[in-house]
């Protein structure tokens, strides 16, 4: 039964889908709408999914949903106000001073990531958070693997440049 298949194969990846959407949109409410729309599409196109790639398949749908919304409301993606980071996981093992430094660093990294153009940001998110292979990222983003490589490299260079200006130097060693 397709709906049961949906619940069994798509819902387990809801966190990943939301995280990806959240980094695409840079806005929590917007990300919720994107994921909800994406799930409606996913339900409709469930038959096009191969068993082994439910997560990458869902990412692709999230991405398409995001871009169709963007094209409907031009420039929306960059005009959205930033939310405060609520989900940063504080490391309880750190003493207060270190934790403060870490929170500061997390905020800097988050800001640096959000400043990146979305094309660079999304490949970094898919690679670093979700551990997708270049091949999987290429399938989600629909570009050649070479483009994935160059976007990752350029995105990281930019990130490094921004963080070198703002982050405490010792965090980069």
């Amino acid at each position: 039964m397709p709906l049961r298949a949906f619940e069994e194969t798509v819902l387990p990846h809801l966190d990943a889908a939301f995280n990806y959407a959240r980094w695409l949109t840079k806005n929590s409410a917007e990300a919720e709408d994107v994921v909800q729309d994406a799930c409606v599409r996913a339900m409709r196109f469930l038959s096009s999914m191969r068993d082994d790639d439910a997560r990458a398949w869902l990412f692709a749908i999230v991405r398409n949903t995001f871009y169709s919304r963007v094209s409907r409301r031009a420039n929306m993606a960059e005009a959205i106000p930033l939310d405060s980071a609520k989900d940063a996981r504080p490391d309880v093992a750190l003493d207060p001073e270190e934790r403060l430094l870490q929170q500061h660093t997390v905020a800097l990294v988050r800001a640096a990531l959000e400043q990146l153009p979305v094309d660079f940001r999304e490949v970094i998110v898919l690679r670093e958070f979700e551990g997708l292979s270049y091949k999987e990222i290429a399938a989600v983003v629909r570009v050649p693997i070479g483009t994935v490589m160059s976007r990752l490299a350029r995105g990281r260079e930019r990130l490094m440049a921004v963080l070198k200006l703002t982050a405490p130097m010792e965090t980069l060693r």
Partner: protein
Amino acid sequence: MSCEHVERDLDTYLDNELDAATAMDVRGHLNECAACHRRVAEREALGRLVRAAPYYSAPDRLRARVLAQTTRARSVRRLLTWAAAAVLFVSLGGGMSLWRSAVTHGDAMPDEVVDSHVRSLMASHLFDVESTDQHTVKPWFLGKLDFSPPVADLASIGFPLVGGRLDYIGGRPVAALVYQRQRHTINVFVSPVLNDVVTRANVQSLRGFHIHHWVHDRMSFWAVSDLNEAELTEFCKALEAS
């Protein structure tokens, strides 16, 4: 391998996307070149930093909304199924008192009916009152239920009544009448219909059991058995006519 090569392959190396031979070349170079070694270390540190950025988990309300969507989609489909079945029923002139539905019933009742049936067979709790006499079984329910189930003995056509039991289906107490056909047990669950629902009979199969449902004289009947469908239909028609 030169520094330029390593710089070019930096990301693929760190992402484990380099072929084994090239990766070994990179490692060899890193052992000798302090500048490249530093660059790789810096890049690794960047990776750790990025992964320390927030991972946004789906809020509970989103999960609830998505789940509600699938439930809604399911009920819309059910509605369409029923509509299609209704059209079929009408197009057949409504002459059949029973009609067959290959699709699932719209609510949880068939599931509960099968569950109760299976439970009654497994737990050796088939009867609360064991009797082949309808005049014993019927009064037994008095005071235990707020209605009086019609109890018929169909022994004359080969479906002897063997007992009765109090059961719970759909969160309500129901009368369970137990009939036998050779070695097959038939459970008939009887409860009053609260509102004036349209009388509709329905036959279906679930988990290897046949289920008949009909409403007669403001009483709802669910008959369930592993008996073959033809004989169960015969039984139900006889019961309805009695």
